């Protein structure tokens, strides 16, 4: 046992010296892969409620992370996690996820609602949620193929005032019925 501890101490000393070599700061993959235990490999979520990050714009991710961190956007867990990172980290991770392919999902959706949403989106949402929600203007998040339960939870939070809607979005959302909004979410979730 004594001999064993001595070898151990020696080995520890050797590796301590070896370990003194400086490492490069965390890379984009190093930072972002840690998120994948919840958001899926490369940000493609297997659902059914954790959102996909793959294919979101850098601006949308940075904006979301900043708002989570400040508390402006309510969250269950992202606020606590966002506090562990700097704005530079947000940009690095945002850039990383924006380079991943949009994650197509298979979900049980109501075809009638999808069709109704498809008819409504052009006039109401497409100014910011571009290309059927595959892209977003500036910091607008992509919604194509996003998990429906996630979109529903976010819409409920907007409508209850917990999450603040952009003014121009609110102008479009307010006049729509709950059923129309539900249809829009089914539509976006269906886009591949």
């Amino acid at each position, binding site marked *: 046992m004594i001999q064993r*501890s001595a070898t151990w101490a020696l*080995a520890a000393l050797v590796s301590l010296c070896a370990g003194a070599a400086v*490492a490069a700061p965390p890379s984009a993959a190093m930072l972002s892969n840690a998120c994948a*235990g919840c958001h899926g490999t490369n940000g493609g979520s*297997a659902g059914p409620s954790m959102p996909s990050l793959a294919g979101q714009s850098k601006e949308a991710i940075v904006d979301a992370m900043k708002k989570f961190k400040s508390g402006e956007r309510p969250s269950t867990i992202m606020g606590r996690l966002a506090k562990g990172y700097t704005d530079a980290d947000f940009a690095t991770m945002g850039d990383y996820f924006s380079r991943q392919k949009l994650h197509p999902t298979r979900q049980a959706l109501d075809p009638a609602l999808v069709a109704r949403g498809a008819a409504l989106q052009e006039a109401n949402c497409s100014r910011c949620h571009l290309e059927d929600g595959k892209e977003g203007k500036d910091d607008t998040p992509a919604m194509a193929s996003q998990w429906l339960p996630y979109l529903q939870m976010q819409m409920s939070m907007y409508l209850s005032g917990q999450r603040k809607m952009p003014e121009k979005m609110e102008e479009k959302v307010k006049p729509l019925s709950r059923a129309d909004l539900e249809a829009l979410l089914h539509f976006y979730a269906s886009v591949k």
Partner: protein
Amino acid sequence: MTLDRRSFLKALGVGSAASLAACATPGGGLSMAKSGGRRVVVVGGGYGGTIAAKYVRMLDASIEVVLIERNRQFVSCPFSNLVVGGMLNDLSTLTVGYDKLAANHAIKVVYDTVTGIDTAAKTVTGSTGTIDYDRLIVAPGVDFRFEELEGYDPATTPEIMPHAWKAGPQTLLLRRQLEAMRPGGTVIISVPATPFRCPPGPYERASMIAMYLKRSKPGSKVVVLDANPDIVSKAGLFRKAWAKHYQGIIDYRGAKRVTGVNPRNMTVSIEGLEDVKGDVINVIPPQRAGDIARAAKLTGPDNRWCPVNATTFESTVAKNVHVIGDACIAGAMPKSGYSANSEAKVCAANVVALMNGRETIEMSGINTCYSFVSEKEAVSVAGVYAVKGGAIISVPNSGGVSPDLSETEAIYAKSWINNILVEMTT
């Protein structure tokens, strides 16, 4: 809008027994010639090992990866407390195979029990042969320090007093014992001193058992005998949940270390106190790194856990050997499935960097543990980790526990287990 159990289970159909067909075991077991120039061998295909194997392949497809796992199917400990409490009917949704992982990333999966690691010769031996490696990643999880419990026979005691701290038959046995218990009975949970696998786990279990007793076994109670002075993780939240739902059912006793067991009388002994009798006794024994890590002399001076470099997870005892997951000492990171997943990625990135003669990359990691406290509510603890002064620290002013019991977190928790199991198996 709530997620019913059926859709959750359907979504969870990750890798049930059906996916065993395309077995990835190379014919000759471990006696296999190197296919390429460089080889990484991973021992243990759990929360850490699967991810390490996958990410090495994702980062550098020119490196051959051999994953050695003793079981053809992996049963997840996370969410197994829901089986104990009856929220899940069985372990099928928590049981996954390795075929898709092997196929998607061309990982060679060998089903064998590793019996020896020679860190000087750089070889790993199992019943099917010996294989050499350039770098080795060891992720065997935990084994138990049974010898610290007087009267505990490792062969027979767990059949009477299940630990259920490795998911599988033990989980189902504990569940069956609860179902068979008389109303008005006493369930004992003994919690070992830290560090142990999944710090909030015993208290989640107490909640799940109490939930079941409240509904199905009126008059019964749960006595928690904790070797630690207080609830180890999310203490305020568990206390709140117990006061809200399980008043008079959970009897928590801190600083009560169980030192011995008597399976014949169904009692446990505590230092300096009278024996406690139970109808169902869940003894969670003290733990250490998986036996193979100790056999390979990868443990530190405590002879229990494996010290590692905080950025590469390379053993500080043996060169070219990395240890991740529950078995290693990861500074501020707790022993959890999420930590093992995160550590595996840090390790993989640096194994690939080292094998390509590149600069290593400083670690950045995350842990999150969700715990169910009732059928509809969960709580979580989260942390972000970085390296400072050669040690893994929790990034100041980040992380922490949920503000309150939350139904929304229960919804996200179900998606978490789905996502992390899909990550491990695809």
